[in-house]
């Protein structure tokens, strides 16, 4: 059957959620037209009504207002079930939804925020995840615009009830701005860019504590926007005038360095599909047999040159939000370093490649064994080591980058960075990820200049 929901074709199995919504709608359609019954539905009837109303809202735009009134009249669980259904639809079906259904989805999301439906923060986060990095198609930019506009519109509401949603929005829009500000499609992006800048600046300047919630990753996000006047001003204040942010506990930018960014932020920039494919690859596919899956992944998510920017997010995700258990690490399943190596090699633009290397080494810079996780820093080391000797160019480029990073990331606070990197190296040996750093410093095929640089780093007092 051809779906009225999605652009799925007749050879595709109908999605189970869509099926249950449609069946509920077809089953009780007469009850969805006014006058509505005043009987209190029993639990099963309640669930069925929720499903039917949702289907009606999404597929009958002209009746949407009637349907929502009906929902308001019968709701008895704070909209929890309804919002949960919406989240499932976004997760499983968003990319395939037809335009009119997407429009309705955004409309009903706004309604749910308006009534503070239980779980509305999760619903907003799930929609944020559907904004695709490096995608300048109308549909994607539309979603970008709708959500940014909505956050500004409903600012007070959201700030009061679920302020963490704004920290998620900040992470997402800072990341998107980096690409939007670089893009040659400037005409198309003009209004959108300004909206995104306004939103981010408002969050940073008025609710700086939300930056503290994000933690260290907010620093590189802001660094990428240094060329944008509004953010250069923020940088100046961050470095020279921390009191501008009216957050008494914030006195120096290095405090941000110490706060490890929670893995939930890294999920925000990869779609549920990307997440599911990557986790599958790293859990079920054997090393040496990943070629076809890699080809399919590339075809689906990295087909256009502008899309390669998402590799930065994929690497942050793999380092920080996907920690394989010991059974997987000790098995023949393809390890994270191999996938990261493949992605790094597929970068065509040098600034993307640089950002990917930064993403790989980021948690090294501030590593503190008592609060940080060795699993965040392990892939970089293993990629360097396993590339010897067959792919020693990779080791070269990574060691070189690490040394450059230590010297240049924060010149004023170089001692903090050196301390972090040395802690990272110590922990990697201590936990047995590598037997010793000699594997790099005594490597015959590594250039003497780099070995010297490493040696100098290791001998810093």
């Amino acid at each position, binding site marked *: 059957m051809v779906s009225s929901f999605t652009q799925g*074709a007749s050879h595709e199995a109908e999605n189970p959620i869509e099926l249950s919504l449609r069946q509920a709608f077809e089953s009780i359609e007469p009850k969805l037209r006014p006058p509505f019954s005043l009987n209190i539905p029993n639990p099963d009837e309640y669930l069925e009504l929720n499903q039917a109303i949702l289907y009606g809202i999404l597929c009958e735009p002209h009746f949407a207002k009637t349907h929502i009134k009906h929902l308001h009249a019968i709701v008895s669980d704070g909209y929890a079930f309804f919002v949960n259904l919406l989240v499932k639809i976004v997760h499983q079906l968003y990319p395939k939804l037809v335009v009119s259904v997407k429009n309705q989805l955004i409309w009903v999301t706004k309604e749910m925020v308006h009534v503070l439906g239980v779980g509305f923060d999760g619903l907003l986060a799930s929609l944020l995840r559907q904004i695709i990095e490096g995608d300048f198609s109308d549909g994607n930019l539309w979603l970008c615009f709708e959500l940014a506009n909505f956050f500004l519109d409903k600012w007070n509401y959201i700030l009061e009830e679920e302020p963490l949603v704004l920290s998620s929005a900040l992470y997402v829009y800072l990341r998107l701005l980096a690409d939007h500000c670089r893009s040659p499609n400037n005409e198309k992006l003009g209004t959108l860019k300004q909206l995104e800048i306004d939103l981010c600046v408002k969050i940073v300047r008025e609710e700086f504590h939300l930056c503290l919630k994000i933690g260290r990753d907010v620093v590189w996000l802001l660094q990428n926007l240094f060329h944008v006047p509004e953010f250069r001003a923020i940088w100046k204040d961050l470095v020279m005038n921390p009191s501008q942010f009216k957050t008494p506990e914030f006195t120096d930018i290095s405090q941000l360095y110490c706060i490890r960014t929670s893995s939930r932020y890294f999920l925000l920039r990869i779609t549920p599909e990307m997440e599911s494919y990557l986790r599958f690859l790293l859990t079920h596919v054997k090393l040496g047999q990943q070629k076809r899956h890699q080809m399919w992944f590339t075809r689906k998510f990295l087909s256009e040159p502008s899309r390669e920017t998402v590799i930065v997010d994929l690497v942050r995700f793999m380092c920080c939000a996907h920690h394989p258990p010991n059974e997987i690490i000790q098995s023949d399943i393809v390890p994270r370093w191999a996938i990261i190596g493949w992605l790094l090699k597929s970068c065509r633009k040098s600034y993307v490649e640089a950002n990917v290397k930064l993403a790989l080494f980021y948690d090294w810079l501030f590593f503190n064994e008592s609060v940080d996780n060795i699993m965040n820093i392990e892939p970089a080391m293993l990629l360097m080591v396993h590339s010897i000797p067959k792919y020693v160019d990779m080791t070269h480029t990574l060691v070189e980058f690490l040394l450059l990073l230590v010297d240049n990331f924060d010149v004023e606070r170089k001692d903090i960075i050196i301390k972090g990197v040395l802690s990272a190296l110590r922990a990697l040996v201590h936990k047995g990820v590598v037997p010793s750093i000699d594997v790099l410093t005594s490597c015959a095929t590594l250039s003497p200049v780099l070995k010297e640089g490493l040696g100098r780093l290791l001998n810093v007092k």
Partner: protein
Amino acid sequence: MLLLKDIVPAAQNNIDTRFILLDKGRTTLEGQNKTCLALVADETAAVHYQFWGDECDVFEPGDIIHLTNGIFSYHRSNLVLRAGKRGREEKVGEFTMAFVETPNLSEIHWIPDPNNSKKYVQEYVISPHSRIFPPIA
């Protein structure tokens, strides 16, 4: 639901199985009908698959397909799995299936079972992998 390692050539369309599409060949014309040969596999084995008509355009490598009432038999000297007249394919997912490319049941020489001429058994392996769609290095 059969695993691919357990399918056996027969003139019956009773094969229910699930696999992932690894590679598709060029679409050609057989009379007035479009047809294309493909490589499919599951966790246990691989086999050559023949798509017919519009099926050729609709499925892409990486698609996970559920086949019902399929048939595994010789078609113009190729031993292929296909939907045939009574079978049906449905795409049920993408990407999330592990697979092996050996053994390939189309690259096996089958002979009638000495004890039961209606059944076929494996006599010897012609090639461990598909010769038409070799594994990617």
